[in-house]
């Protein structure tokens, strides 16, 4: 009996089992058992502190608490299949599915882009032939000039005008100009919306022109618009360097003014966008950003946030930021957690760190959230200032910012 109680009350490491502590607190042990445990407590700081905590706690059923935490740390999902019970890990399945989806998406993007480039190349070749024929027909009617293609910052529509000045150059230059204009017309899409493929423009063929890159400055009179000497070739943003590994995403963005170099694509978001206030017209992108160093730790903080455990998320992220102080995602979600708890000053402090670097992945969300906080705290002047910055930068929240400024003015 003595040996069996010893076995139940002391683990192989020599410390008290949870059963022993439970019985001790409930005073359901014999005097001898109590003596044994209390002698151990005088020697073992670990058990002594643990019993102190468990005795003073209001939670007398700590074993249930331990089970709950265990289920969170080691989640299992049992399902029946052919009469057998199978344990399925929901979370690792989900992560695995996300990884497979993102790989499939990346491959699809590459294939589609490749096919698009080939087809555009082919069509441009065909069009150049058509252009020559049309030119031959229209030659006597309205010759085009190089002035159509003077450089200007926001005049892609002007580049498509059909001014009819005489060109000063050789017949070759005139052929090139006509060719370009005809291609532009054939490629021209709806003037309000243009589809832009990101990240691949630098690889496009020299013979490929989009309407937006027609704003070229002729390098000299004798070689006006040649695919190889295009200067004002619009370069898409490169993915910013960061401490996080990014699996490149693909985004389709509808923009009204595509010549703005500061326009930020919406293909950098990761996780969920918790701020559903205001709608955007951006087609959501899919990309996975992961923290290559702590891939077991970071999701846990986000889980807390998503579960509404903002205090827990704050604790978690503050610890994380202690080690990785510049992690924009942690700064953002920690800031958002403070916001959810109406701790606006702390929220602003963290969100301002995110917006201190425009390359940060959560720059736009943080910027918009800062404006929201200023609006909610009736700090109209500051709100207006941030909203105007958003409008100037013409980012994802452009329309939301315009609406918000109008609301402020109508107040």
């Amino acid at each position, binding site marked *: 009996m003595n040996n069996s109680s010893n076995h139940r009350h002391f683990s192989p490491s020599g410390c008290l089992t*949870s059963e022993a502590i439970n019985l001790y607190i409930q005073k359901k042990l014999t005097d001898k058992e109590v003596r044994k445990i209390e002698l151990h407590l005088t020697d*073992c700081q670990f058990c002594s502190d*643990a019993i102190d905590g468990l005795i003073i*706690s209001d939670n007398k059923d*700590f074993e249930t608490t331990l089970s709950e*935490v265990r289920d969170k740390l*080691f989640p299992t999902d049992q399902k029946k299949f052919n009469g057998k019970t199978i344990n399925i*890990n929901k*979370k690792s399945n989900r992560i695995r599915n996300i990884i497979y989806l993102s790989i499939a998406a990346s491959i699809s993007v590459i294939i589609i882009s490749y096919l698009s480039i080939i087809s555009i190349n082919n069509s441009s070749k065909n069009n150049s032939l058509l252009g020559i024929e049309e030119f031959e027909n229209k030659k006597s009617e309205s010759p085009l000039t190089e002035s159509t293609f003077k450089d200007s910052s926001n005049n892609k529509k002007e580049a498509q005008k059909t001014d009819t000045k005489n060109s000063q150059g050789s017949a070759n230059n005139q052929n090139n100009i006509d060719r370009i204009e005809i291609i532009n017309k054939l490629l021209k899409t709806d003037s309000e919306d243009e589809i832009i493929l990101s990240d691949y423009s630098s690889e496009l063929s020299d013979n490929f022109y989009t309407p937006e890159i027609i704003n070229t400055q002729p390098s000299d009179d004798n070689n006006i618009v040649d695919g190889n000497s295009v200067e004002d070739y619009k370069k898409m943003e490169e993915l910013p360097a960061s401490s996080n590994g990014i699996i490149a995403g693909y985004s389709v963005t509808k923009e009204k003014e595509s010549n703005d170099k500061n326009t930020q694509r919406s293909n950098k978001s990761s996780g969920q966008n918790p701020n559903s206030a205001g709608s955007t017209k951006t087609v959501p992108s899919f990309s996975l950003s992961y923290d290559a160093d702590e891939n077991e730790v970071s999701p846990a903080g986000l889980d807390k946030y998503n579960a509404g455990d903002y205090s827990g998320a704050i604790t978690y992220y503050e610890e994380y930021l202690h080690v990785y102080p510049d992690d924009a995602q942690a700064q953002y979600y920690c800031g958002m957690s403070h916001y959810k708890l109406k701790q606006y000053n702390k929220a602003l402090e963290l969100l301002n760190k995110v917006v201190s670097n425009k390359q940060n992945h959560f720059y736009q969300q943080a910027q918009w959230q800062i404006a929201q906080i200023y609006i909610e705290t009736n700090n109209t002047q500051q709100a207006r200032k941030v909203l105007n910055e958003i409008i100037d930068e013409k980012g994802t929240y452009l329309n939301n910012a315009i609406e918000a400024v109008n609301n402020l003015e109508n107040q």
Partner: protein
Amino acid sequence: MLTVPGNSSRGKYNDLADEKLVSLFKETADSSIIAEFYTRYSHLIYGVCLKYLKNDSDSKDALMHVYEKLFIYLKQYEIANFKSWFYSVAKHHCLYLLKKRKEYTYEENIIVWKSPKEFVEFADDITLTGQCLNEDKTKQLFNAIEKLNEEQKICIDLFYLQEKSYQEIQEITQFTFKQVKSYIQNGKRNLKILLSEYYNNE
């Protein structure tokens, strides 16, 4: 986090020593090992967190956080005595949280609590000595006991010599559970110091 399929994996690891499990984890990164550590120590870690953080919700979070860290730390660190090390990890995590709450500050390397904390046996150096008093050396022992302060003397006498339980000592002295435990532990530590002085002088 990886799956631990029920308790079926417990049989694999429940007979192995802590240090053996640590080295196995370094090789295999098997989450069942972490689950085994959870079975062995979660109630103690939770209790320690409750002692310092004083509320259930924070303690639950801290418990989860400590075990999440374990996945990383076991890979990174060489651990000689897992039990002591794990206890210190939990304790330092709680202290870190309390420091964030500004519940204490450091002054000349000594912790000063914002509000008085009685009977906190507090030391940065966490060691579990496991040394017992030598009760056969009766004369030196009684001399040493006489040198203790009144509360420690009473509790040492009642616990060791009269073999009373904490509960009984509480009833006799009207001290709280924590006070009784603290007087016994501090008294024992002082006795060890006094007795070692006696032995050194002999």
